[in-house]
């Protein structure tokens, strides 16, 4: 990572934790969802334990979705994106760094929070490790795909709805394999296949999507 990209990463992290950065929004959403589901579903531990992997993964995914439109929209509004596009930092690098910054302020804290919330949902004891592993492998995809969606919709006013509709179908494979890893972990079944597929999706997204996102940004900045 060059000095320019490091400066961009530090700036995005700093902006996220300062006032108005929206750092806590996704985390608060995840917490609220995980607290409300047991209250809504009822205190049946068996039922809760069975739905816990799905609830935790859906919660993490929706929490990620909340902050996606900020990835490029704020920089587009204040003109920074134009200036970054003609800077010496390649636009592909800008996209990758912004996706990384998004993951560091949403995906990573969500992953670290998830085991605590698993207790509320009566998640099976053998599943906690796999919950963390699956979120660690899967949430980078959520940020990368999200950055791609944000790049496609960057000039659109109130593009949040369009962004969600574009991104949701692309999130489905990650959700299915991620929740499957946790479910199999809870039931003590073999889980190498969904885990490998989850990792493959993440690696593929990391390899391809920065280029696609940069191309979309170039078109949208015209």
């Amino acid at each position, binding site marked *: 990572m060059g000095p320019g990209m490091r400066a961009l990463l530090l700036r995005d992290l700093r902006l996220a934790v300062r006032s108005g950065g929206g750092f806590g929004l996704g985390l608060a959403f995840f917490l609220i969802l995980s607290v409300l589901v047991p209250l809504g579903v009822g205190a049946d531990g068996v039922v809760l334990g069975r739905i816990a992997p799905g609830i935790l993964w859906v919660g993490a995914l929706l929490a990620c979705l909340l902050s996606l439109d900020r990835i490029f929209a704020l920089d587009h509004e204040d*003109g920074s994106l134009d200036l970054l596009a*003609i800077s*010496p930092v390649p636009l592909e690098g800008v996209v990758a760094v912004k996706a990384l910054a998004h993951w560091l302020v949403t995906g990573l804290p969500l992953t670290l929070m998830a085991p605590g919330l698993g207790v509320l949902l009566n998640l099976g004891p053998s599943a906690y490790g796999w919950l963390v592993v699956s979120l660690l492998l899967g949430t980078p995809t959520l940020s990368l795909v999200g950055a791609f969606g944000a790049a496609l919709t960057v000039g659109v006013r109130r593009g949040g709805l369009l962004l969600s509709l574009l991104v949701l179908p692309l999130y489905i494979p990650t959700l299915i394999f991620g929740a499957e890893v946790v479910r199999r972990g809870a039931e003590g079944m073999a889980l190498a296949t969904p885990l490998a597929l989850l990792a493959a999706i993440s690696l593929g997204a990391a390899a391809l999507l920065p280029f696609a996102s940069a191309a979309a940004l170039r078109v949208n900045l015209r």
Partner: protein
Amino acid sequence: MLIEAHSLAVARGGVTVLAGLTFAVAPGAALSLRGPNGAGKTTLLRTLAGLQPPAAGRVTLAPDTVAYAAHADGLKSSLTVAENLAFWAAIFGCRDIDRAVQALDLSLLARRPAGELSAGQKRRLGLARLLVTGRPVWLLDEPTVSLDAASVSLFAGVIRRHLAGGGAAIIASHVDLALPEARVLELAPYRVRALARDGFDEAFL
């Protein structure tokens, strides 16, 4: 020549607004773009900056020579003046922000968040960004908007020093920057009046 345009045409929203522009700007020279609102000054500057492709013709310039000051200053309101400048300096691989801070008289504001600045102070910070890019060609889009008379003459001095150091500037401004050496390019003769759309898709999107 630092930047050359050959029979350049530029389009905004799929509509060609200017055509047949040919000009060159040498080191130490300034070009002042004149034209009424909607003439295509911003579109021309964005095309020269490489943010959009020319509709026809070509722009010749070495890579990484252009610094662009648009209507929006590219500032983050929750970062301080010094942090904003240091960020752009790091992006452009420059270490020294003191020169830029002093050139635009921002020393007393360095620790203030950019969100608390007045419009004119923000503008000065946006213009200070040009100095930390270290790039020779400045594309300035209405640089004097919301600047007071003292700041305008301060900035004129900054441009003059930039030109004396072998830089160049292309300026779209309604306010006279008191740069007698600047060549004036009147855009009116190059305007394309017929609003023929070449392909509806771009305008539609």
